[in-house]
């Protein structure tokens, strides 16, 4: 099967969702040491995904279409919003404040999921359409980082 941007990036979303849920479950059970590791894994995976999008995928799309103020701009802004919540979550984790963490994680989940929905249903298919078979070389560049 030909590798598409939509398939590969959607799979990363699923992976991040899984670690997100693990960390949240651990915080709810107040298993703080485990939660520290899991949150860290989640945070790293998200940052890696964002970087791949912002530095390679979105830039390539913007360069090809000349659209820098379009949907990719919107996605970049939502990444910033999520980064703000990551920072707050990190603080609440350090303070062992489960109530605060769970309220933030609830908010992050909604923000993240509607963001993913827009990417998976609109932006990624659009990028696949623009690049066609070239998608493979973009994915190789992403793997190289």
């Amino acid at each position, binding site marked *: 099967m030909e590798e598409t941007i939509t398939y590969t990036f959607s799979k990363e979303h699923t992976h991040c*969702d*899984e670690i*997100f*849920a*693990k960390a*949240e*479950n651990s915080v*709810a059970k107040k298993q703080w040491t485990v939660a520290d590791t899991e949150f860290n894994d989640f945070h790293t995976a998200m940052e890696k995904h964002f970087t791949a999008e912002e530095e390679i995928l979105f830039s390539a799309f913007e360069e090809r279409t000349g659209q820098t*103020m379009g*949907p990719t*701009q*919107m996605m*970049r*802004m*939502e990444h910033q*919003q999520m980064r703000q919540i990551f920072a*707050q979550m990190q603080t609440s984790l350090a303070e062992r404040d489960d*109530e*605060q963490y*769970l*309220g*933030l994680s*609830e*908010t992050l*989940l*909604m*923000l993240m*999921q*509607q963001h993913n*929905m*827009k990417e998976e*249903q*609109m932006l990624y298919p659009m990028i696949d359409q623009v690049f066609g078979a070239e998608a493979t070389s973009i994915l190789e560049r992403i793997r190289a980082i």
Partner: protein
Amino acid sequence: MNTANLALQQTPPLSVPIRFFITAPLFGILASLLLIYIGPDIFSSRWGLNILALTHLFTLGFVSMIMFGAILQLLPVVAGTIIPKPVLTSSIIHILLTVGSLSLTSGFIFGQDFLLRIAIVLLGLSFFSFVAIVGYCLIQVKGNIIIGMRLALLALLITAGLGIGLVVRFAYGITLPLAMILANIHLTWGLVGWVGLLIIAIAYQVVPMFQITPQYNTKLMRWLIPILFLVLLLWTLAYLWLENNKLVGWISILIGLGLAVFGAKTLHLQIKRLRKIPDVTLNFWRVGAVGLLLSIILWITGIIWTELANQPFYPLLLFILFVGGFVLMVIQGMLYKIVPFLVWLHLQNQQLNPLRTVNMIRIPHMKQIISPKSAQRQFWVYLIALFCSILTLQFPNLIYLTGIILLVAFILLEYNLLKALKLYRSVLISIQ
């Protein structure tokens, strides 16, 4: 162009969906009061005008009201589009729907033809403009949820068309042929077509999203809604042509089975969820799926064992289980995610707008906007009201108690929503 403005353009202003959401519980309150007012007489006739008023307070004033708001909010996320002039358009549609629902139901209660005539115009305008505008926004996009939304809108058109035809009968004293059959077709398209298909389409998105469950099966997402729509069409033609023939009953069993697949699959996915923390929306959705399955079992049993279907309590129990146990459950569950998130999102967007932000403050998170405790409390009160309403079928005098508990449930819902809105205003003031 600054990024904050772009973000604001992407999601409609908070007032667009919220006006629908905070109006709906008021109709729930009216419905509860009407229930208390009617009292045990409710069981005297199926088509009593008071029952018509009561059912429409729920289906138009509560269910359709929230569905309209939710669709307007969902459009940017699922279709990447936003309705033209969102505030103006939504306020017109909202006023038409609100006043239209009030005049229809009060027309039924007070037997006033002119109120019904007003309702025909207002509701007609509201539904047709809503379908036209949203339908237009959905033209360019593809996907399973989009197909589901389009078919649900088509079902809304059929429901509204038939409904208007049926009200013309009352308002102008015109006798319609097959009035009873048309009424059954109207309510089936309304409940299964418009509301049912829309809930299924939205569930494809939100069930995996809220609880991090696996996705619904791809084939199911592709085929269930179109098949249900086609079976509904087939059932309608058979019913019009053959009336109460056995075949019509068998076709409607297919509709029930299709919905049952959805209910069972939803429960199954929720068992496999990765997110195990307590969640009020999950409670609403689980009870909702069970309510759906119970209503289908009752429906199919009534077709096979016609003696049951002839009992006076049968249609009422069916309505309680399907609307009260399924539709109202999942809708309220959804509100507890959508409203706190929207309040947060709009405050966050305001904060990011450098032209309007003066003070950077910490935006309250979703669980501070509506506390899980108060949402949970409202869930239990509503659940008790549901049980009481079922018991009322056996003990008619319980209707007063049912009415009061239901009233409390809707007041608490409205209180939770208004409190979120109040917090929004106060935080907004401290930002600016």
